[in-house]
């Protein structure tokens, strides 16, 4: 049921008029709330230029704090995504294995690392690296953050991969076996390629979580990522907390929008490619959690 218009009839003239009325009412309400918020902020001197100006006319806010922070965030996120994706795929396939000695350890790893708060994993990783490796202290927080993120997100990705594969019709693997494919061939050439399409939206959701979770290591480990920069900025520019949080939130939102837009383009690209081979999975457990669903197509 990817095309949701099956849920209701096409709007007639009366429904269209009503929709217009709803739209007008909604925007009136939105304007009212906005006015209320802004006037309350103005009342409390939160809109004074002093608090917001540094982000516009002091380029050092960007060069000293925000951009280096963004770079650290991107580094940690890219590394975590790069490692967690293949690891998660292996764990997810491992949980579906026919051998108990593969299935059970994979299951234990997934359930265990899914249950511990990521921050605590980062702290433990930092300590283990400090005790038993000679990774430079300057770069150790990055390693710790990446380790924590990889362990947690690989577990979640494993679950996504598993449900993606389970969502495929049984006939697919039966047919593959019938033509004499080996088990790994069934997985690599038949199941995984189809499952990827089905689980892509859920995967993207998880990638967004990775980007945001890089922020966890900041306060505890002295990892200088983007969100953590708000302490140094507010300490220098007179406790402009609300302004700083707003700016950082906007950067995060833009960054993640970029990621999701790219992913939905990729999803469409893969789907279009798949259509020619005729293998489209419409019944995936996580099918079509589209992000930029075209609006008003009715």
């Amino acid at each position, binding site marked *: 049921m990817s095309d949701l218009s099956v849920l209701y009839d096409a709007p007639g003239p009366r429904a269209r008029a009503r929709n217009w009325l709803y739209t007008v009412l909604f925007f009136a309400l939105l304007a009212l709330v906005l006015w209320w918020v802004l006037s309350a902020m103005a009342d*409390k*001197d*939160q809109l004074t230029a*002093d608090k917001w100006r540094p982000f516009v006319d*002091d380029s*050092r*806010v960007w060069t*000293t*704090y925000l951009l280096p922070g963004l770079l650290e965030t991107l580094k940690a996120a890219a590394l975590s995504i790069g490692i967690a994706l293949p690891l998660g795929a292996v764990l997810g396939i491992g949980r579906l294995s026919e051998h108990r000695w593969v299935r*059970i350890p994979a*299951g*234990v790893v997934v*359930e*265990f690392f899914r*249950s*511990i708060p990521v921050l605590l994993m980062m702290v*433990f990783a*930092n*300590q*283990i690296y*400090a*005790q*038993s490796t000679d990774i430079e*202290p300057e770069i*150790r927080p990055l390693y710790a953050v990446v380790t924590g993120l990889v362990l947690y997100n690989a577990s979640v990705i494993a679950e996504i991969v598993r449900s993606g594969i389970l969502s495929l019709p049984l006939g697919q693997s039966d047919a593959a076996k019938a033509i004499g494919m080996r088990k790994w061939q069934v997985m690599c050439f038949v199941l995984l390629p189809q499952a990827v399409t089905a689980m892509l939206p859920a995967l993207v959701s998880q990638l967004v979580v990775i980007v945001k979770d890089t922020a966890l290591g900041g*306060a*505890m*480990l*002295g990892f*200088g990522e983007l969100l953590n920069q*708000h*302490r*140094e900025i*507010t*300490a*220098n*520019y*007179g*406790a402009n*907390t*609300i302004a700083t949080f707003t700016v950082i939130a906007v950067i995060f939102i833009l960054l993640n929008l970029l990621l999701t837009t790219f992913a939905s383009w990729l999803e469409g690209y893969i789907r279009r490619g798949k259509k020619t081979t005729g293998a489209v999975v419409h019944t995936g457990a996580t099918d079509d959690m589209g992000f930029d669903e075209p609006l008003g197509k009715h």
Partner: protein
Amino acid sequence: MNLRKASMSAAAALALALTATACGGDSDSGSDGDSLTIGIKFDQPGLGLKTPDGKYEGFDVDVATYIAKEMGVKAGDITWKEAPSADRENLISNGDVDFIAATYSITPERKEKVSFAGPYLMAHQDLLVRKDDDSVGSEKALRDSKLKLCSVTGSTSAQNVKKDVAPKADLLEYGGYSECLTGLENKAVDALTTDDSILAGYAAQKAHQGKFKLAGLSLSDEPYGVGIKKGDTKLQKQINDAITKMVDDGSWKKAADKHFGPANYEYDDAPKITETS
């Protein structure tokens, strides 16, 4: 059910392994004569602050630089490292830093894990209130008051407030002091409470001058020490000598006036060195 049991025992094993490794930490400290790595706060105006120019300033920074100079290390050869409160002991025992000067109060629990030199400053818990607010006059008034106080989650100051300083007060806890200051400006809270040295640093900032003042109560003693690797008596003596010299030649007072002066903070005289062994 098997799975759950297995995971539980794995968790317990992990916990034990971690604590075991944590106790056996003994990597070498990186002091090699011509360069030093020093842990400071990056977000504490007046004590340790990373400025927009990418430089570091504050009283802790000045003390650390002076100590480094006495150890024969030029200011340019110091690597500053952020030392978040929760990470200070580990930074020292892992040998990531040579010493830490980051609003680090000397307490018996901390001395289990690290050694201290100094103290170099005696801070006291105090209140920061709006300029026109005179409602908090004395310790006694505070104890019976129902003020809205603000401090950092889990900090010693927050615990003191709950225990005996102002048990009846309505305490709001945040992740950092900036949120409290915004609340103070917004009149959502009546006072921010923590060490007076930290409060003075905020009050002395250009953006805050004329807005806030210290109430001038001494609710606790917080001797700020220099954290060093446990049992390093040689470094302890070096640092103690440096601090003594800094006080004697007037640089200590100059640094204190520079960073705390604008807030009209009447800081205590340099404390007597207590950490000798």
